[in-house]
C-alpha cells in the first residue's frame, strides 16, 4: 500500500510527539501544538487552553520532578484518531505503571500540521482493553 505524503507528515508529527514525551523535551512538545490547543485529563474536570498554559502545566506538573524519562508511550488508535498507551515511572529506575490512554487530534492545512487537542483518560485499567499490561519493567 502506498503511503501518501500527508500520512508521512502525520506519522512524523506523531513520532516527534512521542519522542518529546519520552525525552522530557517540553519545548519540543509545545512546538508541535497549535496556539489555541487544548489539553484535558478526564475524569478530572480541569482542562487547559492555549499553548502557553499547556507549557506551564507540563513544566510544573507533568515533568515537575527531577526525574528523567518519567513517561513511556506506545502508539495505538482510539476513536479513529491517533492515540497512545501511556505509562509513568513513579521513582527513578522503577518499573512503569499504566497511566491511561491519550487521544490526540491533529489539525492540518496545506502547509502546516499541528496537534489541536490532547485528551488523556487517566484511568490505568483502560490500557488492558487495548491489550496492554498494567505494569512494564524497564
Amino acid at each position, binding site marked *: 500500500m502506498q503511503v501518501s505524503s500527508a500520512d508521512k507528515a502525520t506519522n512524523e508529527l506523531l513520532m516527534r510527539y512521542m519522542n518529546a514525551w519520552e525525552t522530557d523535551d517540553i519545548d519540543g512538545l509545545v512546538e508541535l501544538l497549535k496556539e489555541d490547543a487544548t489539553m484535558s485529563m478526564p475524569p478530572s474536570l480541569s482542562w487547559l*487552553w492555549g499553548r502557553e498554559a499547556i507549557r506551564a502545566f507540563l513544566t510544573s506538573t507533568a515533568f515537575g520532578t527531577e526525574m528523567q524519562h518519567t513517561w513511556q508511550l506506545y502508539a495505538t488508535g482510539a476513536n479513529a484518531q491517533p492515540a497512545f498507551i501511556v505509562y509513568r515511572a513513579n521513582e527513578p529506575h522503577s518499573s512503569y505503571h499504566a497511566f491511561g490512554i491519550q487521544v490526540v487530534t491533529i489539525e492540518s492545512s496545506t502547509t502546516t500540521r499541528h496537534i489541536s487537542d490532547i485528551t488523556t483518560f487517566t484511568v490505568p485499567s483502560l490500557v488492558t482493553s487495548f491489550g496492554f499490561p498494567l505494569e512494564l519493567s524497564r
Partner: protein
Amino acid sequence: MTEQHIKAGTHSRESGRFDPIVTLGDSAIFSSFIEPYRRELHVHCYRLLGSLQDAEDLVQETMIRAWQHFEALKGYASLRNWLYSIATNACLDTLKRRRPRTLPAEVSPPINPNTPIAQAPAESIWLEPIPDIWLLESTENPEARYSRRESVSFAFLTVLQLLRPVNGPSCSSQMYWTGAQAKLRIYSRPQSQP
C-alpha cells in the same frame, strides 16, 4: 453456517426473511443465533452511549429483550436489523434517564495552569475511548467500516450525546444518525477564551 444453524432456522432466499423454527426456550440455540452479533452490537451501543462499560450493560439488556420477544422475530426481514432496533431502543431509553457523556471542555471553563487539578466528579460523566481494533473487527465491509470510523470521533460522539432523544421510541436510529450528521456539519467546537 453450522449444521445447528441450518436445522434451527434459515434465511429464505425468495422472501429474504428469517424463519426461526427453533423450539422457544432452547437457550443454546438462541445464543448460537445471537452471539455472532455481540461485538458489533457492543460498538453500536458504544456509539450511542460513549462508554464501553455502559455499552456492555446495554448489550446484555438487548439479549434479554431479544430472548423475551423472540416470537416477534418470525417474519422479520433480518435478524441483524431486529437486534439493532432492540439495541437502539434500549440505548435511547438509557439516554433519557441520564445526563449526556461529554468531555471536560464542554462543561467547565479552562483552568489557570498554576492552580491544582480538580478532583474527578463522583458520577461518570465523560466519554470514554474505544480501541480502533474493535471498529475493524466488528465491521463487515470497507464501506461500512468507513462510516463507522467516521462516526466514532470524539467530535461526533459529543454532538450525538448533546442531541437528546425527544421523540420517544418512535425515533428511529436512522433519524437519530441523520440528525447528528446534519448537526455536525454546522457544529464547530466552541473556542472558549481563557
